[in-house]
């Protein structure tokens, strides 16, 4: 069969383009392969295969990381310019895969997840989630972005409902889903207007924003705000943070560890692409409202997250709000100019990954020991297991942002950026956010300090049911190391990150 020439003319170059893109798409392709393979393996009923699954996933993901690390170079735009593989995206890919690996490891140490049915799907969905995140980070096209976000969402719903027989999980999933779907709908509605204004879906292109700048301000602002809605949902930022505590409480702890880090990193990368218009001096004045919205939301997110966290008695809910608070800080970073923003945000998110995974690991260990997620259930555990107590303390310090942990360095970078920009631009919001960040750091201490407080100062009422095994100890140490090491050698991580971001 022969194609008509006009089709050939338009199609063939595209096909060639796609073919050329396949090299760049290889990691994603491998992820798809892994995903399918896992589903396939799930069809086998053999126990030995079931046991192999986590190891298989981990090694698969690690292999892909290595592949990505050595093989893939930055690519400005491919796949019909729908995707871009810049430093942000590539580093993001490492981060997502690492989060995936950690989640699998955490799951291995979490007995409730070791139910027989649906194991392969569980791992497959983790891989799928990583895939979706990676597309999110790479998307430069609204359609592609929407699809990636939905992929992530659907995979997330499944992971949340991993423990099907548990009421909280089911409730959380339903709420997550319905809330997420509405957020997606709102975002979509906003996107439709953006498309209407520009007749284009390529949101990273300059022409897209030039056209937008001609639109009357109120309408434009509304459309942008609606679009942001979906992003804020993924980031769990104000005013779309409500799902977070419920889902964190209901979902299996390893999954929560994943949720609290990787999707945020991905959506932050998307946001960065969105606000990079502010770097453009001629266009920036037209989008001042975008800046203001984000600044206000950053402040409100910090406010909502920190203050609500004060009142929590459930560790997972507490950390949910804490992650909301971190989202607020991260939103503030998004507002910085490109050169400081990218590195800072990646640094912050990386440290957050280690700290959060570490802390959730400890929480799941404590959960097993005491059968509860209440903060009070931690009472006295730090005395019985000093290592656990010390590790929690270090992680909590890192999350608060105090030395000698990398959390401090991350905050230092953030605050430095804000200060520097305030000095340069005299934009008062930078100062407000800086002061808010500092004040809320103090507020944050109020609730973070609860954990070491209960661990050490309160006495245990019931003896813990389980010992603190070697494997979790090792894993905790593994997670602690970067948190401490990257304080003393912040340059190592930062230059690693800059190796990615400066390659643009």
């Amino acid at each position, binding site marked *: 069969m022969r194609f008509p020439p006009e089709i050939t003319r338009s199609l063939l170059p595209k096909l060639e383009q796609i073919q050329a893109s396949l090299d760049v798409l290889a990691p994603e392709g491998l992820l798809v392969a892994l995903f399918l393979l896992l589903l396939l393996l799930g069809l086998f009923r053999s126990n030995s295969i079931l046991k192999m699954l986590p190891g298989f996933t981990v090694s698969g993901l690690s292999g892909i990381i290595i592949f990505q690390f050595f093989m893939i170079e930055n690519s400005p735009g491919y796949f019909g310019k729908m995707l871009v593989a810049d430093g942000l995206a590539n580093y993001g890919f490492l981060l997502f895969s690492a989060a995936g690996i950690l989640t699998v490891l955490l799951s291995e140490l979490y007995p409730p997840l070791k139910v027989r049915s649906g194991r392969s799907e569980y791992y497959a969905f983790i891989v799928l989630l990583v895939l979706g995140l990676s597309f999110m980070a790479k998307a430069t096209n609204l359609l592609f972005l929407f699809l990636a976000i939905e992929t992530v969402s659907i995979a997330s719903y499944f992971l949340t409902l991993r423990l099907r027989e548990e009421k909280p999980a089911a409730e959380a999933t339903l709420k997550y889903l319905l809330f997420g779907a509405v957020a997606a709908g709102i975002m979509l509605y906003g996107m439709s207007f953006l498309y209407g204004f520009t007749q284009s879906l390529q949101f990273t292109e300059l022409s897209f924003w030039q056209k937008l700048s001609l639109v009357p301000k109120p309408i434009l602002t509304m459309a942008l705000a609606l679009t942001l809605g979906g992003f804020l949902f993924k980031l769990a930022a104000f005013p779309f943070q409500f799902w977070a505590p419920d889902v964190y409480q209901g979902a299996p702890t390893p999954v929560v560890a994943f949720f609290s880090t990787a999707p945020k990193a991905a959506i932050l990368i998307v946001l960065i692409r969105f606000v990079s218009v502010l770097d453009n001096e001629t266009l920036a004045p037209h989008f001042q409202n975008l800046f203001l919205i984000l600044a206000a939301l950053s402040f409100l997110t910090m406010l909502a997250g920190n203050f609500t966290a004060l009142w929590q008695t459930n560790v997972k809910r507490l950390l949910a709000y804490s992650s909301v608070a971190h989202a607020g800080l991260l939103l503030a970073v998004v507002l910085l100019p490109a*050169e*400081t923003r990218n*590195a800072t945000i990646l640094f912050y998110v990386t440290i957050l990954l280690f700290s959060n995974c570490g802390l959730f690991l400890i929480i799941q260990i404590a959960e097993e020991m005491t059968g509860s997620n209440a903060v009070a259930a931690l009472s006295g555990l730090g005395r019985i297991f000093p290592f656990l107590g010390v590790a929690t303390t270090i992680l909590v310090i890192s999350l608060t942002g105090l030395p000698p942990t990398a959390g401090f360095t991350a905050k230092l970078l953030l*605050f430095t950026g804000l200060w520097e920009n305030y000095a340069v631009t005299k934009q008062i919001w930078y100062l407000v956010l*800086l002061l808010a960040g500092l004040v809320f750091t103090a507020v944050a201490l109020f609730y973070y300090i609860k954990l070491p407080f209960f661990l050490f100062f309160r006495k245990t009422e019931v003896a813990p049911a389980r010992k603190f095994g070697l494997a979790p100890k090792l894993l905790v140490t593994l997670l602690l190391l970067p948190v401490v090491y990257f304080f003393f050698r912040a340059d190592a991580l930062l230059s690693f990150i800059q190796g990615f971001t400066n390659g643009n």
Partner: protein
Amino acid sequence: MDHLLSLLIFLPLLVAAIILAVPSRFIKAIKLLTLGAAAAVLVLSLMTWFSFNPSQPAYQFVEKADWFGLQLSSFGYFQVQYFLGVDGLSIAMVLLTGIVGVIGVLSSWNLQTKNPKGYFALYLLLLASVMGCFLALDMFLFYLFFEFMLLPMYFLIGIWGGPRREYAAIKFFLYTLVGSLFILIVMIGLYTSVIDPIATAARAGLSANQNATQFLLQTGKLASENLVHTFSIPAMTEAANYIPGSMLHLLSDREIFGYPARLLAFLVLFAGFAIKIPVVPVHTWLPDAHVEAPTPISVMLAAVLLKVGAYGLFRIAFPVFPEAAVYFSSFIAGLGVLSILYGAFCALAMSDLKKLIAYSSVSHMGFVLLGLASFTTEGVSGAIYQLFSHGLISAMLFLVVGVLYDRYHNRQISGFRGLASALPAFTFFVVVAFFASLGLPGLSGFIAELLVLLGAFTSASANGLLSRWFAVLAAFGILLGAAYYLWALQRMFFGKFWIKPELQTGTTPQDLTAREYFMLVPLAILILAFGIFPHLLLDKVSPAAAGFVNTMLSEGKTNLPEMLNLLP
């Protein structure tokens, strides 16, 4: 010894790590290890002390190494150094830390510790971080140690403290954390504004020397990505190292909320350190922390930790912002006097002996502030002397309270009468400590307070900064000091021996044990020695104090009008 100072910090850390490895049943070994580490620190600090040459104004025993640096694209290079050194201001603090460190271990010896391993490891951690604070010349490093002090303290109070320990620990932690956030914000402001000229020259590929680089910087001829931002405190004190147009550049017309940025930055920094000192009205963490902390920790807290706040003013706040310090001198002196009187009146009303002493610390630390704000050689030397002397005296005060508490598990003044007849040796040390604290001549507190008051008084004629009334009011603090101490002495120690029935243990109270003598006698001797031979300390300290005053006054007074002129 090339790495004397590093050793001072890392030796206790190392031993702390070893202790963690020792099984907790070898309590004796753990204690001995701790004692050995503290003693080694003392020896090292003595070595530093004796080989310190006061006539040389520069920092000595300097250790400087690049720690890490981050390239923040066009903003420049962010340099953090491992930078230690001592000068006349810090040498006294180093020695004090060494001395009190050993005393603290001794007084921990019989402490009923639930978990001795953790206790002693944390103790050494505390010792190391305090030492680090006094030795660090890089603000990042300083801040690291400054924050790091909080944690061991938090646990030491919270786990091994008294009945309301949890409240006290959290209060302490939050209070000082807020203080350190203040410091953090100024630290960020400073390092974004300050460069290291030598490193910048190297980075920009210039062969220019320091002055030339500074000239290039001030004339705006250096590309911003080549600038090496630094945390080095000595670099921060040089106005020529500030990037033109940066927030904290001397001649920048920057305002924050309508105030000159530098003045505001100084105030914020001051507030941060003031919490640690503590200065009224941000002092309320101190009585609680003291009352709940176990004796050795109270000793460390009062004798060394409080000094860190004042030291921060000496080392950072004042030299970096001389004009602001001069501008606010009356305000600072006013706070000092307020602390002196306020603390004294509070002490007068206390019914718990330990709380009384805690408030007396507030009062005595007020003298440091007053001396510092006087900008006279007498006042500043006196302030440092007060830091040192109060370190010894408050250590002794808390030790004697601890002795009492060990015997009766109570510290209420109303619970005892006529202890002098039952515990004569103990009373002797109480009297020495009390009289040292209230400034009896011949004991170290006198010299310190004398010099501070003298400085505050002469400030009016020497540099015209402070009104004489500050000294006059502060002098009444001495009277009040005598009042609360002697009143307590009269109520608790004089009269016929009597103890509240519910406190009676049934046995005859035991006077001091050998271990207690071993802690108290050296302190008493030191207090006496430094009271009679002040030159022991002043020879090392006062050249630096004079240099401090000279630079502060010359820079402060020339810079202040210029800075104020720039404002609309």
